[in-house]
């Protein structure tokens, strides 16, 4: 089976605006390549400043890449083709409270991507919103509510609804589970796993929590200063880390699994 999303030599560097001849560049992301299949989850871990969030921004098209190419189903995505990109690659952000516009109802919030990307009429759009809300475990009547009327976990579900409403193929979760309480977080993981099963979604999961990564992901890449230092099956990497960055990351969390010995 061919890969759903394939990234080849994607890189990003920022240019300092100094003198005309003395241009300097800082490389944030060295050329990296990886691929994701449908129904699979790729986890990205790394320390602060290792380029995890930059990678997410490049994939979703929020920032133009300096080089390299992203292939979706074997077809190259141009940096200008926003329409194609936002239909197929969607993103969920960390803080669900601030990503929803407080002055719009849920109906208006979810209507916006449909208006921009599809040619459905109003009745069909409303019906689609209703079914999508039910899919993420909310009620259809919730669409007339404003974001402040929901709790944190429910807001995260609305962001998920906004992500899946266009029937995407890839969803990027940038620390989307970090700000949730533990019991809501496991509900959200269950929901994400169910949706993956039903819709064949591929996830790119950026997270600190190695427990969740171990549970949730199939493959993993470890970033350090913009470079991929280790990649492979999650289980293999977790059980037998090779690079010292991976070892350091794992060491800092592995002891949390057992209570303190007296």
């Amino acid at each position, binding site marked *: 089976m061919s890969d759903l999303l394939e990234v080849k030599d994607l890189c990003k560097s920022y240019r300092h605006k100094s003198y005309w001849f003395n241009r300097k560049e800082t490389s944030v992301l060295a050329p990296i390549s990886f691929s994701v299949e449908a129904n699979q989850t790729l986890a990205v871990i790394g320390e602060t400043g290792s380029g995890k969030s930059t990678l997410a921004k490049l994939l979703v098209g929020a920032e133009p890449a300096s080089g390299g190419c992203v292939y979706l189903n074997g077809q190259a995505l141009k940096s200008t083709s926003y329409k194609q990109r936002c239909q197929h690659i969607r993103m969920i952000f960390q803080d669900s409270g601030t990503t929803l516009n407080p002055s719009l109802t849920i109906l208006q919030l979810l209507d916006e991507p449909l208006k921009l990307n599809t040619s459905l009429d109003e009745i069909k759009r409303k019906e689609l919103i209703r079914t999508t809300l039910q899919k993420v475990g909310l009620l259809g009547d919730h669409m007339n509510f404003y974001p402040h009327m929901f709790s944190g976990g*429910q807001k995260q579900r609305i962001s998920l609804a906004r992500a899946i409403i266009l029937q995407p193929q890839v969803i990027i979760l940038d620390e989307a589970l970090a700000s949730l309480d533990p019991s809501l*977080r*496991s*509900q959200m993981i269950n929901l994400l796993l169910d949706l993956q099963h039903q819709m064949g979604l591929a996830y790119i999961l950026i997270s*600190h*929590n190695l427990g969740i990564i171990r549970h949730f992901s199939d493959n993993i890449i470890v970033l350090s200063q913009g470079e991929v230092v280790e990649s492979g099956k999650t*289980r293999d990497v977790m059980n037998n880390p090779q690079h010292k960055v991976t070892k350091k990351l794992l060491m800092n969390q592995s002891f*949390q*699994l*057992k209570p303190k010995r007296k």
Partner: protein
Amino acid sequence: MNLLDIRNLSIELIHDDQRILAVDKVSLSMKEGEVRGVVGESGSGKSLLAQALVGVLDDKWHVHADRFHWRGVDLLRLSIDERKALLSRDVAMIFQEPMACLDPTTSIGEQLTEAIDSSQLTGYFWQRKKQRQSAAIKLLHKVGIKNHQACLTSYPHQLTEALCQRVMIAIALARRPILLIADEPTAAMENTNEGQIFRLLASLNQLKNMSILLISHDLETITHWTNTITVMYSGQFVEAGTTAQIFGKPLHPYTRALVDSSPSANLHLPAKSRLKTLPGSIPILQHLPIGCRLGPRCPRAQQACVKAPTVTNFHGHKVSCHFPLTPLKSTPKKTRKGTS
């Protein structure tokens, strides 16, 4: 003698002639040199509890307690000024967003020297400034900052989050407290930094015999560092016991769910299988269920749960539930050490 002994602490908020019990009869006791974790999800009142301990809640909150003893002294009988003097000498607190808590307009050095009490300094007034400076440097060394000169002259935004948290701990240590309250000290921090901060707190606990009250929303991050844990849910006391008891043999359905829902605690679980969770979400303060507040979400709820359960002590393992997971009549087995 217990360091801290609180019995039935309630915190009430009066809002539009409506009384909201934000914290409902929570008991907490700490021994000297103990690291106690307080675990609860958002809205469980764990931060309120800490703030009530230090006495920084403002007038709209009403705090009642049946007993509030600090090292044998009944704090409820002291006047406000006496209580403040006693607590500010012995108790220090650090907060969750260190960058937001430090003053952005003054340098770290100034903030640190300000915290040093002049009663600790000896000598004449012209020697004081130098002594303060050297005391500040010593404090920075204590929390593991070697490059003290650069740190003292910099402003909070120039330091990383973990360094800021270290500075916060240094400020808290300035008065040599007996109890340090850490309110989510590592929220939104990287793994490596989180480990550093916890290791620093653990070493302070061991070397200086300082007791630590560690507040967190996540059971799995603090289990390694605590001796005993108190679990709270929505302002009510749920369960308290040693870490091994709570983690290895939880009695309350809520604690059970917390342990089950953490993927890192259940390594035997096959990847991508469903996690066990409680249905529903955390109730908001305006619409709290009566009786046991877990009631609507609890898998074992029965009719009796509309009345708040009393705390049952079970060989030091306290639980507040009508239908705990292991029947209380049978004698408890000895908890194995270091079980997962």
